[in-house]
């Protein structure tokens, strides 16, 4: 098990890393792959150190993905990218990935996809070549092409990061507005519902793909309707569609509200309340008689 011992020497110790830093990708920031415990590089780890799968997942999160990881393996083997030896790299890749615990499927997905690609290439290389040349692309060449394209973007991203950046290298001046403005600003008073709606919006941003449904330069923003309807239903349990409307928004408001309800139903946050065993909503039934309920 030569490979496994290499893994152990490479893996981070199960140091406590706050979920915040993992989530925001601070860990993934470290470009060099040396071991670090609290920012301090560590040169040697005991050979027989037990590394729990969670720690391996954290270690893997230092990579921006399977391509980044493959690049690392290629560099580690000190070979030219175009001469990438598929067989040993595939073995190493799979050995690492097998350490991944099933709990980390989310992380593993992209890595497993890459593993299957590698296995496919490996199989192809081991099988005797057919006499008649096929039209199909050489999967190994394709993988190398992708690796090159990825390496180029990774390099470009480092150059981008080296530019003088606002709010890291230079700072905007922040000043307060005149007192008189603040005095007149005391007049508008805000509804506490704005706060709750903002939290709903934070969680329930409509799909980016749904932005086409926003009607007429945001006369009634879909996100606002989704937030407001969610708030009303979650506080009251159930309400009729008519009750959910904001009368001041007119016809467009009805349309946007309906789209909002559909979006919430798609997310299984809202359901149609069936009264008296009547499940079907008749087509010619008034929309306003539709009763909706909060499911979350």
């Amino acid at each position: 098990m030569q490979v496994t011992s290499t893994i152990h020497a490479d893996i981070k110790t199960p140091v406590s890393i706050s979920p915040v830093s993992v989530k925001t990708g601070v860990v993934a920031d470290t470009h060099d792959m040396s071991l670090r415990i609290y920012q301090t590089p560590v040169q040697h780890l005991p050979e027989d150190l037990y590394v729990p799968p969670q720690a391996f997942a954290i270690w893997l999160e230092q990579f921006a993905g399977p391509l980044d990881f493959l690049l690392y393996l290629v560099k580690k083997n000190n070979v030219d990218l175009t001469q990438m030896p598929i067989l040993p790299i595939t073995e190493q890749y799979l050995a690492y990935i097998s350490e991944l615990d099933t709990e980390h499927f989310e992380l593993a997905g992209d890595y497993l996809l890459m593993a299957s690609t590698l296995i496919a290439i490996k199989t192809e290389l081991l099988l005797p070549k057919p006499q008649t040349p096929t039209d199909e692309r050489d999967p190994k060449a394709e993988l190398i092409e992708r690796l090159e394209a990825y390496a180029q973007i990774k390099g470009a991203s480092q150059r981008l990061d080296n530019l003088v950046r606002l709010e890291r290298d230079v700072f905007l001046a922040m000043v307060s507005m005149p007192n008189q403005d603040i005095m007149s600003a005391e007049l508008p008073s805000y509804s506490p519902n704005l706060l709750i709606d903002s939290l709903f919006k934070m969680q329930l941003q409509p799909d980016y793909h749904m932005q086409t449904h926003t009607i007429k330069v945001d006369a009634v923003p879909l996100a606002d309707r989704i937030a407001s309807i969610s708030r009303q239903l979650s506080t009251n349990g159930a309400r009729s569609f008519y009750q959910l409307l904001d009368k001041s928004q007119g016809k467009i408001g009805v349309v946007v509200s309906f789209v909002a309800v559909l979006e919430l139903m798609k997310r299984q946050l809202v359901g149609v309340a069936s009264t008296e065993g009547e499940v079907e909503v008749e087509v010619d039934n008034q929309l306003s008689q539709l009763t909706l309920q909060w499911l979350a």
Partner: protein
Amino acid sequence: MTTVDKAKQDSNKQSNNKQETTSRHIEALLHASEAPLTANAIKKHLSLSSQELQQALEVLQERLSNGVLSLNETASGYRLQVTDSYSALIQRVFPQRQERLSQALLETLSVIAYKQPVTRSDIEYVRGVTLSSNILRQLFDKGWIMEDGYKDTLGRPALLHTTAQFLDAFGLTHLNELPPMPDMAAIRAKS
């Protein structure tokens, strides 16, 4: 001019230069700070005595008088503010500046209101995006939030709370009148 006078003048000049430099450092900090800066904070960050601070602040005030800003001392510290005489101009050009609260500002305010006391990174964790200094600055400017105390972790980050002015602006008399917070975890799990 006697030699003594000359020496005195030179030393005055040097001390003026130093005050000038210090006043610029203070100005830069005031432009960069999210919250108003207390005299103590400025003294600590720039290693100044009370007297040095006072002198540098005077130099700063003098220099600012050529432009549109003034040094303003509030209950929670010093900040730079556009002079009142430009208020009409600003309101004419940016009439909607006051009423509209951006989604990012409301989200930040909600997190502070419901989870207080919170640190900056608590807010970033809940919202999943980095917090722009400008938003915190706006909340401090409106007087809706304040710093009070420190969290006992690495870097001792300041703890943020809402203020009485926040309650006023939202028509509340007590924090327990805030509308109940929705079950965020349930929503997140479903969507």
